């Protein structure tokens, strides 16, 4: 109960800060739309590459990537807020005041999730207006968005672990860059089977490849490797939960 009340308080405060400050809200809304426009619009001829087979079309193919990317970066952007809270001294006062400090991590995670749900809703509406074809049914789509939710939670837990260890905004690139690389070392532009050379090897072992390919199969209505994708996503979230809680302990020790 104490954990929940702390989590709700932290989440409410974080969401109020984000939704009343356009400079914090707009980038997380605009960047995914921009990537969607640039990839789906500028690269649509890639669907003509021999062997490219994704019946709903290239717009839907890129939508899944951008949706999952926005989930991950929604977590990272909230991580920036944690670092800012440490720099301003707010987080230290929070550590003193909270009866259960694990609730702080949970609160930031709830805020990140609420923030991403808004982004996901806007992105989906724009994609549908742009003519995106959807092959999957309601259960498939629910599974796709559920993958996004888990990825968002994993990303905020990763970012909060970094923020609580370093406690400075200068840690921003350390939160952003690994997530960026993990996302872009997956099959972003073409399916895994069409990648060649080193990028194919890297993408094959990249856990996010499973999530991305399963997400695309769900949108197309022909689910493949969905169980593996969920297992990978849950494993990432569980691993980063430990990372975040240990980061919290590190912040506590630092005082």
């Amino acid at each position, binding site marked *: 109960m104490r954990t929940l009340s702390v989590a709700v308080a932290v989440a409410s405060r974080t969401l109020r800060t984000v939704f009343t400050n356009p400079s914090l809200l707009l980038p997380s809304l605009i960047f995914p739309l921009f990537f969607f426009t640039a990839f789906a619009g*500028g690269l649509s001829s*890639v669907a003509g*590459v021999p062997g490219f087979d994704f019946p709903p079309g290239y717009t839907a193919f890129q939508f899944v990537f951008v949706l999952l990317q926005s989930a991950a970066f929604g977590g990272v952007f909230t991580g920036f807020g944690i670092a800012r809270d440490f720099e301003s001294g707010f987080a230290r006062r929070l550590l003193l005041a909270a009866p259960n400090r694990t609730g702080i991590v949970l609160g930031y995670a709830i805020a990140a999730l609420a923030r991403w749900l808004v982004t996901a809703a806007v992105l989906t509406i724009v994609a549908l207006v742009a003519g995106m074809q959807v092959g999957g049914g309601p259960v498939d789509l629910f599974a796709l968005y559920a993958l996004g939710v888990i990825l968002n939670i994993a990303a905020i837990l990763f970012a909060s672990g970094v923020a609580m260890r370093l406690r400075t905004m200068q840690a921003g*690139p350390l939160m952003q860059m690994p997530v960026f*690389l993990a996302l872009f070392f997956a099959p972003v*532009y073409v399916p895994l089977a069409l990648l060649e*050379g080193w990028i194919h090897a*890297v993408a094959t072992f990249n856990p996010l490849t499973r999530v991305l390919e399963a997400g695309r199969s769900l949108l197309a209505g022909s689910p493949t490797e969905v169980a593996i994708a969920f297992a990978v996503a849950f494993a990432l979230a569980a691993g980063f939960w430990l990372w975040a809680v240990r980061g919290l302990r590190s912040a506590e020790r630092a005082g």
Partner: protein
Amino acid sequence: MRGVFGDQVLLLARRSVVRTARQPANVVFPLVFPLLLLAVNSGGLDSATSLPGFPTDSFLAFALAIPFIQGALFATMNAGTDLARDIQTGFLNRLALTPMRGVALLAGQLGGVLTMGVIQALVYVGVGLLVGVRLESGPLGILVLLAFAILVSVGFGALGAFAALRTGSGEAVQGLFPLFFVFLFLSSMNMPRNLIEIDWFRFVATVNPVSYLIECVRSLIIVGWDTEALALGFGIAAAITVVAVTLASVSLSSRLTRS
């Protein structure tokens, strides 16, 4: 008098370079991030070279032009942010009390950006050659690439300086970053314009000056000596430079109010 002016420019250029060099993030990030994107995009989009009409069979060679322009964008941010910090910390006001000429300040600042631009260009060409890209324009093409990198760095650096002088805020300069990224992504960065299928995107890429900057560099790498691409690229880069330096000079004179 001319010697004094030269000394002023050199001193400020040296300060600009040393300040950049002392912040590893300002050196490493503009060098590494464009190369990472190059690696990711060239790996991921290599199969696009099998599209009918694609101008080369190596996407790496096709995409090598992008880091040159991306590096210049980072130079804009760094130059603008450094100058904004000088304004915020009062350095510019203290400088205004000295006999330092305003134009020397701008030239010095741009000298630092230019140095960084040349280093970036050499690294990008070096990496390209190392991974097997052969410039169709030959060794002379490398010199032309360097000249273009200098022009673009000065032009974009002056844009950053203008933003800093106009707003006096590092955050405002950083706020330009997404705008520049929009210009970059809505260009012929990843696909030749004639292969872009979506009409409105092709139109935007055609009217976007960044497309011609990229195509100028790209022509030297995958075509050889394409007079039209070179003329358009150098012409647009020169126009950006003239406009940006003029705007920065005007803003500087109103910022440097001597009593």
